[in-house]
């Protein structure tokens, strides 16, 4: 039983990682007042970029760099449309999702001729598990052993990046000048403008941060857990991250717990497949897959507190003509 719990938790951490990275990405963007429905597209683009470059160079780090670059480029397109040109942020985000979905499959097919997938990664093209010191030796120690060697040790480096990004995000947001201005620009951009700070530049920096984190999330899928890019491999995780962001009320620590919860539901769903429960029988996988969204809707309906988004989120900033 204990081992099952450990395995479940281990799976939860693995599944939560891309969600958490994307969720924090969205947090930076939306806290600055730029609604980002294009998390999904950026992840997908990053996954493809990372998969393709890691295959060609046989270097996971170059793959990661490529993934981040693609994602940041898409983020800048979103920024150009919604910050510089004050376009509708939802429309721009949706466009980026379509663009990424179509372009990755098209380029994948053109370049590699495997139905849009990138070929299986060679040695070195994929991130390997990091084994912590003494993990093997401690494995047999009761309780502490499995916790240490299964749950803490033995993940890809990006998993640790994701979880370290949580306190880092909190610190940036609430302890630095950049964070203060970022939060301010998402609440009242006019206050930031009159304080002599460029609203556009603040928001661009936020979407770039968002792009970088989405780059990590996408790359994790194709060159850390996966071994190569597959068509539409993000499968809605960007939207799930968006739901998590709302559920977490735009707060970093909440984001981590929410993503762990959503990840756990996913892991549980996989585990419960084919398991006959007493009375109810087998619970379909789809129930677990739908739960995060159901929970978010319940939250939005006001049953679990109130989720108040940054006040200026989604509103392009335009200097008023007196």
């Amino acid at each position, binding site marked *: 039983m204990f081992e099952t719990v450990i395995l479940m938790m281990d799976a939860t951490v693995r599944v939560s990682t891309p969600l958490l990275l994307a969720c924090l990405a969205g947090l930076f963007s939306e806290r600055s007042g730029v609604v980002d429905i294009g998390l999904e597209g950026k992840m997908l683009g990053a996954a493809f970029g990372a998969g393709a470059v890691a295959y060609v160079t046989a270097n996971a780090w170059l793959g990661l760099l490529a993934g981040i670059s693609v994602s940041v480029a898409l983020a800048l397109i979103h920024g150009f449309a919604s910050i510089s040109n004050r376009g509708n942020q939802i429309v721009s985000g949706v466009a980026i999702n379509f663009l990424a979905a179509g372009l990755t499959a098209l380029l994948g097919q053109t370049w590699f001729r495997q139905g849009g997938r990138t070929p299986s990664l060679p040695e070195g093209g994929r991130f390997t598990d990091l084994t912590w010191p003494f993990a093997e030796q401690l494995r047999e120690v009761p309780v502490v052993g499995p916790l240490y060697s299964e749950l803490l040790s033995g993940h890809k480096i990006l998993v640790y990046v994701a979880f370290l990004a949580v306190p880092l995000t909190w610190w940036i947001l*609430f*302890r*630095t*000048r*950049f*964070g*203060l*201005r970022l*939060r*301010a620009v998402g*609440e*009242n951009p*006019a*206050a*930031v*403008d*009159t*304080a*002599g*700070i460029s609203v556009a530049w603040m928001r661009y920096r936020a979407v770039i941060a968002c792009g970088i984190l989405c780059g990590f999330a996408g790359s994790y899928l194709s060159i850390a857990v996966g071994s190569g890019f597959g068509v539409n491999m993000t499968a809605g995780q960007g939207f799930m991250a968006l739901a998590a962001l709302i559920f977490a009320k735009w707060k970093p620590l909440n984001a981590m717990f929410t993503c762990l919860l959503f990840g756990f539901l996913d892991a549980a769903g996989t585990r419960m497949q084919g398991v006959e429960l007493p009375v109810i029988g087998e619970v379909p996988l789809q129930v677990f897959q739908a739960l995060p969204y159901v929970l978010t809707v319940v939250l939005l309906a006001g049953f679990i507190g109130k989720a108040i988004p940054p*006040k200026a989120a989604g509103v392009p900033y335009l*200097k008023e*003509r*007196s």
Partner: protein
Amino acid sequence: MSEVPAIELRQINKSFGPVHANKDIDLVVKKGSIHGIIGENGAGKSTLMSILYGFYHADKGDILVDGTKVTIADSKAAIAMGIGMVHQHFMLVDNFSVLENVVLGAEDSAMLAGGLSRARNELKRLEDEYELRVDPDALIQDLPVGLQQRVEILKALYRSAEVLILDEPTGVLTPAEADHLFKILNVLKDEGKTVLLITHKLREIMAVTDTVSVMRRGEMVATRETRNTSMEELAELMVGRSVLLRVDKTPADPAAPVMEVENLTVTDSRGVQVVKDVSFSVRAGEIVGIAGVSGNGQSELLETLSGIRRATTGTLKIAGETIDLGTSTLDAADMRDKNMGHVPEDRHRMGLINSFAEYENSILGYHRDPAYSKGLLMDIGAIKKAAVEEIEKYDIRPPNPMLKTASFSGGNQQKIVLAREIERDPEILLIGQPTRGVDIGAIEFIHRRIVELRDSGKGVLLVSVELDEIRALSDRVLVMFDGKIVGERGANAEEGELGLLMAGVEDSQMSVAGGAQ
């Protein structure tokens, strides 16, 4: 005059498309003085100040700060030159603390901790020096507007502003808060700071400024020493012709009540009681004014009586009927059928559809009237005819019923709404903020119409945050504070007394508070 002026503007010009907002503006602001700039809405005051604060760029002209010609590229540059601004709509982040708002944009370093603790000490010092007390850890959203404004002033002082621009600072303040603000401005002056006060209220100019400049239609028309001028002269300069500042009216001759409200209580969507057990009546042939600082339940009261908002409990006697407002399902159209007209507080949000033509707006709410229909269709001809008559009668300009109401000035938009409601011959007219954003000339006209309506034997319920307006028009004044009617006064109520009531000083405490004044 050997002293170098704090600010000097030479031949400033600024256009927005076809609108020439500032034409060849010259202005000299003496160091250590309070300089008022007065003008009607749209006269170009705010544009001029925004240019000085680097928010806009002048198309032409020079700005001199302390005698040196400067280019103010953005707000940051203005701040660096010692120019601070308190905006009409506060530039504060609501869910930040006072401290965070003060340091925003002036944080010292990339880490916040140092800047915050320096700001804390500095705020304490400013507090003592200028008597600007405010809790540095309070969230802005929890502070009353008077204190929020203080935070704005502190923000400017924290950035070592030598010149402080205040744009319509008293719009949201009670008379007592406004007096306190003026005291602060005088302290600032004594400390050698220069204050630029933008306002359209003549009384404020007379009360606090040393020098006053008048703007009209984008031009600077005059500059006067305040002690050598008068309200009448300034009003004339603002409008370009002589205006009547007082409303001519005879004492009211009220008859039987046309509307009686009893024990009205209204709860808003947050579950907060916004109108608390309010009872009053309006008689035929009188104007009942409801005074109060904005946000004390007047808006909700108007909305409930006009059928837009639901009450929790209360009764309304109107047109010989007694309506239980707690259970009634009467909507705005039903109330209109009971001969109640309503000029809503916010003409843009509730009074007009600005993308519609004038003639369409002239029947909004009365579009079901058989006079305007031909079977299933609207009788456009009849509607336009009525609209043209109203345009003539109310001197609405431009006199074109086909024009979208968005193209009319604030004063003319308000006249369109007023004409629509008055011309339907209501027994009782509810009016909210009849002259908000309306120029002096139109104010005079609107006030006259309201008095005429009263003289023709109708009841008027007037809600306004402008105390002068309430006092000029009302035959009886009710003061609302925190959802309750806290006092009633006759036609000649003292301003100071009303001010105290508006600030929540209850009648019973009045003698004490009055003695302390």
